[in-house]
Structures are given as C-alpha cells and as structure tokens.
C-alpha cells in the first residue's frame, strides 16, 4: 500500500532540529542558580537571554573598534561605521527587506512606533481613523492615543474572541475610507496568538490605508518576510531576540520613509543646518538623530548570525513542540485556566494563565523560590485584562534554550503554589 501525502504537507521528521544542550551551553546565565535552585528562565517574551557570542561581539567592538560613526575619516571611525552599517544589512536580509536603507535603528520597539506616530502621523486630521486591537502591548496603544489627542483623529479597536483570537467579523466596517493606518501586533505578548493578516491586508489595500505590524514577539521566533506579508511598516526590538537592550528596529517601505518628515532633530539626521532653517538627510539617517546605538547594532548583528546558524525554522519547530507539551501539561493542573489559544496552531510559545484563588504575584513569588522565572502582572497589555475580566495573569514564555524538563518543573511548582495558598 502506498500512502499519498498531499503536496506541500509538512512531514514531522523533515523538520529541522538542533541540539538544545549545546545551545544552552552558549548562554552563561543558564548555568546560574537562583536561591539555591538551578535557574529556569521562562520569561523570554519579556526579554531573552544572551549567548556568549553576542556578549563577546560587543566587548570586542568596545575593546578594539570603538569610534563614532558617519563622522570621521579616520580608521577607527571607518571600522565602526562598517560594523554599524553591516549590522543594518544583516537586519535587512533577516526580514527580507528590499534595501538596507529601509532599516531605521531606534532605541527599542516602542520608540519605533512613536516615530511613525509622530512623523507619518503628523499630517492626520479630525475624521481620520487609526485601527488597533484589544490585544496590543501598551507600546502599540499609547502612541496612538497621544497622536489622536494631538491631531483629533479617532482610535478604533479590533475586539477579541473568547478563545483569544482577533475578532475579524467587523473588518469591513472597522477598516473603511476614513482609515489611515491599521497597526496590530503580529504575535500577542500575552495570549500568544499569531494573527492571520491576509483579510486585514486585503481590506487595508482596498481602502488605501497603511498596515503596520508590531513584530516584537515574532521576529525572535520565526522567519518573517516583509515582502511576503505586504506590510508598510514593521517594528521589533533587539533585546527579545538574543540581542542587547538599547536597540530597536523600524522597517518601512522606502517610498513611505522618503516622504516622512523627521522626528527627533540633531546630529547625523541633517543635510545642512543654517540659522534660518535646516534640511534633512535621506532615510534612514533622517530618523537617526544623535549618536546611534553603535555597539548595540553590532550585538544585534551577532544575535542574527546566531539565530541564522541555528535556523529560524528549527527554532520555530522547537518552540512548537514546547508549546504543545506545555498546553497539555498545564491542562492537567486543577484550577489553571489558560487565556489565549489552547491549541498549538496559530500561536507562539507564550502561555498566560490564572491559578484559581491565587494572585499572580503570589504565583510568581513561589515559583521564583523554586528558581522558575515567570512574569506576572498586566504584561503591559491592560485592555486584555479588562477584556477577560482578570486583574493580572501569570505568563510562561519559551525560547530556543528551553526544555520540556523545565515545563515539568513549572507544573510541579504550580502544585506547590496551590498547596501554599489553599
């Protein structure tokens, strides 16, 4: 008998893999103890840990190639500039951006969103509409609230379904001729939901609006292609993808960036400065006022090299395995309720849950005493808390260095939590 596999159907044993133990050995912090217990780090959605390769790349940069960029003809300045611009090219290739000039380095994803809100958004008028969703991180809410205050534009929201997915039922009315921009998260930092964007993109193109995707929780975890997704802007942040703090990325279509006025003013973003007025450099320089995050770009470049070496598909599959395992394991714990998709499809490796009768702070504290680091609170996404009528949640989030053993430890920890507070 022959089995016919439908064309294009992925086969599990075709899936790329990697040696988790070897990966773990690259992360010095994973050898640490917390309160006498081996560290179990389940908070990568908050910030990821850093491999030795990234830490060293920055140390070597400071020790041997440090200089300011784009301002000097000297050798050190040239080395620093090549390193900085080289990192820009790595980022561009990583997300398949048509040109490195479409990559703007910011201090974090939050600044990247604010940049678009201030620069692109400065021409909005009363009557114009921006559409976001109830599953946004505060960084993709507050800049738009502030923009609407400044310009008189109106903020509209996609709702959420009970299962933690974007409610697209009103996409055609929500996105309409008044809509100028739709800015939604690609992966929720609380629910783990990975949003399907096709219907939204279609509607955005239909009405002539723009689409921005907050990819802060996507880029670290799976291959992403800005051309494929047909977005107009995406943002993400270095520290969640094995890179350093202090650097974020805005990608924008060249044709849009070229028309946008500057946001921050200062050194490096000018063409010429006169007392009577100034003119601006072309993007990306136009949006990078002052000394940029040079060493941080070097670190981010090293992080991308590291991710590429392991392979984004292998990382995505590793996380899918962990997520399936964790969804099963947590469903065996009495009193635990998961918020967000309960199936390992269309979701990332971030699981938020409540423990009946125990406040998340107390859950987190007891787990911490066992070496298990989870995040508790509103996760910078209060509207989700309001949507599901919870004051706060506990969140476990996984990355390439996590193991099923660590999920077992989490489950055991939750039993201890319940014993303590029952």
């Amino acid at each position, binding site marked *: 008998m022959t089995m016919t596999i439908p064309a294009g159907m992925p086969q599990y044993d075709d899936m790329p893999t990697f040696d988790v133990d070897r990966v773990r050995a690259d992360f010095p912090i994973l050898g640490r103890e917390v309160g006498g217990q081996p560290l179990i780090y389940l908070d990568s959605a908050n910030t990821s840990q850093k491999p030795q390769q990234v830490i060293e790349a920055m140390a070597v940069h400071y020790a041997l190639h440090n200089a300011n960029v784009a301002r000097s003809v000297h050798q050190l300045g040239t080395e620093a500039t090549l390193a900085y611009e080289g990192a820009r090219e790595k980022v561009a290739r990583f997300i398949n951006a048509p040109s490195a000039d479409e990559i703007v380095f910011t201090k974090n994803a939050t600044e990247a969103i604010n940049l678009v809100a201030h620069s692109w958004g400065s021409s909005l008028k009363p009557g114009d509409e921006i559409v976001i969703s109830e599953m946004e991180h505060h960084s993709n809410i507050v800049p738009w609230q502030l923009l609407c205050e400044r310009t008189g534009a109106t903020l509209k929201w996609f709702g959420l379904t009970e299962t933690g997915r974007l409610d697209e039922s009103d996409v055609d009315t929500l996105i309409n001729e008044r809509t100028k921009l739709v800015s939604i998260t690609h992966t929720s930092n609380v629910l783990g939901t990975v949003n399907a964007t096709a219907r939204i993109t279609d509607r955005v193109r239909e009405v002539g609006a723009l689409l921005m995707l907050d990819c802060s929780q996507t880029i670290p975890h799976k291959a992403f292609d800005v051309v494929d997704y047909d977005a107009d802007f995406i943002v993400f942040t270095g520290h969640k993808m094995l890179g350093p703090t202090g650097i974020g990325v805005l990608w924008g279509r060249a044709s849009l960036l070229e028309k946008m006025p500057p946001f921050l003013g200062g050194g490096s973003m000018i063409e010429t400065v006169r007392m009577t007025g100034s003119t601006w450099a072309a993007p990306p320089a136009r949006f990078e006022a002052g000394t940029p995050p040079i060493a941080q770009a070097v670190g981010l470049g090293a992080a991308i090299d590291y991710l590429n070496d392991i392979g984004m598909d292998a990382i995505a599959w590793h996380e899918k395995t962990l997520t399936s395992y964790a969804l099963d394991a947590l469903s065996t714990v009495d009193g635990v309720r998961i918020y967000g998709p309960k199936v390992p499809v269309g979701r990332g490796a971030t699981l938020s849950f409540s423990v009946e009768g125990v406040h*998340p702070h107390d859950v987190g*504290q007891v787990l911490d005493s066992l070496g298990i680091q989870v995040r508790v609170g509103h996760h910078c996404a209060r509207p989700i808390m309001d949507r599901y009528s919870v004051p706060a949640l506990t969140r476990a989030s996984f990355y390439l260095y996590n193991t099923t053993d660590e999920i077992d430890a989490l489950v055991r920890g939750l039993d201890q939590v319940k014993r303590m*507070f029952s």
Partner: protein
Amino acid sequence: MQLDQLYQEIILDHYKHPKGRGLREPFSAEVHHVNPTCGDEVTLRVQLADDKLIDISYEGHGCSISQASASVLYELLAGAELGDALKAHAAFTELMTGKGQVEPDEEILGDGVAFAGVAKFPARVKCALLSWMALKDAIGQVEDQ
C-alpha cells in the same frame, strides 16, 4: 531568600480573612491608588473627625501581600488618633524601605511586624505599601479641604 520570611502565617491569615474590607459611608475622602508595574489597585476611604480616624474602609485587588497589608492597616489604625496613625505610618514605611535592616516595634506596628520579611524582597515592597500610601494621600486630602 526564604519564602516563609515573606509569607508569614499572619500575612496569609490576613489575606484569607481580611479585616474591614468593603467601602463604607460616611467618609471624608476617597482615593484610588494603582501600582503601575503590576496593576494592583486599591480604593480607600477615611472618615476623619476631631483628629481621629473614625473609619478606614477599602476595596481593591492584588496579591496576598497588598491585601494583607490593607487588612493590617485597618486593624491597626481604624479608630486611632491621627498622631498615632502617622507615627505608625512612618514606622511601617521605614520598615518597608529599610532593606531588611530595620528592627520593627510591635507596640507601634502590631501585626505589621510580620511584614519585616517583605523588605528583603524589593519587588514586593510596593505591594505592601500600596494601601499605606493611599491612606497618607487620603489624610492629606482631608487636611487640604
């Protein structure tokens, strides 16, 4: 850090059986405080007359530490003279921000001494202080009136 330094029996007891919870009338001032990093909230009312805290009533949600702390605050200070209340407030704040180096005085703080261990958990100090900050604010509002 030992977990039981944080979760003293007294604290868990106040958490499971909070004293004085619920918003009551009459009141001279009402305040609403939030811990922005974690979302814990408390609404707190004081009824203050003749320099006496006739009643302190509260409502809110949060972790065991913040809830137990509000319960202890009620137990200790509802009915107290304003001067004594401020003294207890100062002592509790000192205890919480003392990084575990301050010896608490049970005569002034009552069950509040159980929070001595919280001072060693910097991330939880704000939880313990939430209702106490609200009280200070509410008293200030009455005085401003």
